């Protein structure tokens, strides 16, 4: 049986940036962690103590086979079992747009973690706007590869929406990273100007209000 070997440079560009926000030897919880690409990298490269929550049994088994601690289950229910500030970081990577009650998830994240990291595809990227504006069709892109009828994304979020949401729900944005990635997300660059128009993803480091 061969053992997977994920090198840091194999990491998706957005995950590399998330990793850059996390200090070494931290306790990290990954929500909807999949087979744990980010967690494995944090564990091996940054000596972090990682735990993941994932609903899909196949992905859980693959992550466990890599040596990660992953609990299969619903992230709302699983988060309830942890005491306050159990983790240094709680990461919700590209899952926010699929969550029914985002405020509940974010509040739980900041209860059990000192800081939260939330990332999501930016629906207001200009290519998406163009598809809607010129073609009159629901946007389909490499970041949003689904048709309207089979998408798991039940929330349409933009970078600007998330900033407003922070005020509404009452959490603080400690750092905001907007990125533009290539088609397979392996590489990309940071966007510092007109990010809501030009970025494919938004990554936010959040905390409780000061």
């Amino acid at each position, binding site marked *: *049986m061969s*053992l997977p070997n994920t090198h840091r440079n194999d990491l998706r560009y957005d995950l590399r940036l998330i990793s850059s926000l996390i200090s070494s030897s931290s306790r990290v919880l990954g929500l909807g962690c999949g087979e744990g690409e980010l967690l494995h990298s944090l564990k091996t490269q940054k000596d972090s103590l990682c*735990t993941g929550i994932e609903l899909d*049994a*196949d992905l*859980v*088994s*693959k992550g*466990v*086979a*890599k*040596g*990660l*601690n*992953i*609990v*299969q*289950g619903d992230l709302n229910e*699983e988060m309830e*079992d*942890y*005491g306050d500030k*159990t983790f240094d970081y709680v990461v919700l990577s590209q899952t926010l747009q699929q969550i029914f009650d985002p405020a509940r998830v974010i509040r739980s994240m900041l209860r059990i973690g000192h800081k939260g990291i939330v990332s999501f595809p930016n629906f207001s990227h200009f290519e998406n706007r163009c598809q809607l504006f010129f073609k009159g069709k629901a946007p389909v892109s490499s970041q949003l590869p689904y048709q309207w009828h089979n998408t798991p994304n039940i929330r349409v979020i933009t970078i600007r929406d998330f900033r407003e949401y922070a005020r509404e729900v009452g959490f603080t944005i400690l750092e905001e990273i907007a990125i533009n990635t290539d088609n397979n997300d392996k590489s990309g660059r940071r966007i510092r100007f007109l990010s809501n128009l030009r970025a494919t993803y938004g990554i936010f480091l959040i905390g409780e209000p000061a």
Partner: protein
Amino acid sequence: MSEYIEHDVQGVSAGIVEKQYFEAEELVLDNGQALGPVIIAYETHGRLNADRDNVIWICHALTGDSHVAGYYSEEDEKPGWWDFMVGPGKGIDTDRYFVVCSNVLGSCQGSTGPGSINPETGNPYGLNFPVLTLGDMVKAQKALLDHLGIRKITAVVGGSVGGMQVLEWCLRYPEFVRAAIPIAATTRHSALAIAFNEVARQAIMADPNWNHGDYYFGNKPDLGLAVARMIGHITYLSDESMRLKFGRRLQDKFDFSYNFEADFQVESYLRYQGKKFVERFDANSFLYITKAADYYDLGQEHGRGSVVDAFAKTRARYLVISFTSDWLYPTYQSREMVKAMKKSGLEVSFCEIEASWGHDAFLLPSTTLSNMINGFLYNVSSQYAPQ
């Protein structure tokens, strides 16, 4: 628990293995009683390393035995009960680990049990054999561990009642256990599980040959034990697996017999399993082990009723595995222990594997199961490997 499910030999076999015996002069049981001498049958695979810590300790289920993998001889038709999992390059890699599996105290596959000779009378113990706990069984395994000079266990692994022993190992000897894999297990039997066991026990005790456990010189309660096994087999399967495996198909006939013969395949299967079982198992052992499993309550025994408090006393890293179609120890019971482990701040993984084969799924080849166990063990053992 139906350990001898037929399956293909996957990959390289663990090879020829010999049943070994360890004798302890005396074992003080949880009830204070001293039992002795105690013999424990066991087998080992692989080599113990210089640090004496590359050990995978396997606990078998209710009616299993120490023969976990490989063959007793060239002519042997069947390998050990977990042959697909244990062997060179397999889920539990015998090239890397020293694997030990022993027959539980109270059983009848080489270890001391109610069918053994009571030194005080010169006759089999029968019902004079002391009532055992799962803790006693683990205590006997610990005596074997000491005898083998093992310093630490990389992981204790087991399914079903074996999984309950895995948990008991973590609680009783936390300093010896680095990791644990309870599979299709529970911290205590539900009313459903106790109910099935009780019907099975009643089947044995209602057999006139049982004779209050005193049958070793005459006819054995084979009919009762066979019915007990038939009940067991129903609980190890699932509605889905029985539908797929048998449906309403008839056995070697085109029409019903209308005379209470085994018409349906499922009837024939259960009768066959029952008949086969009485050749290898002792009815009194069945009574003692099922009762020990029914009495077991991890939270009550180790945490004053709290499973969280109990697990807080352990230090192992856990991989908890359940199966979707298991209705004997359903997934919610595994989730309860995972919850308690999380609340105790322990490192834990949990996976519910999609399987139609019910409680017995852990005894059937599954790449998901093998890969997950392999990777988990590799990670735990590398953590402690000399730098």
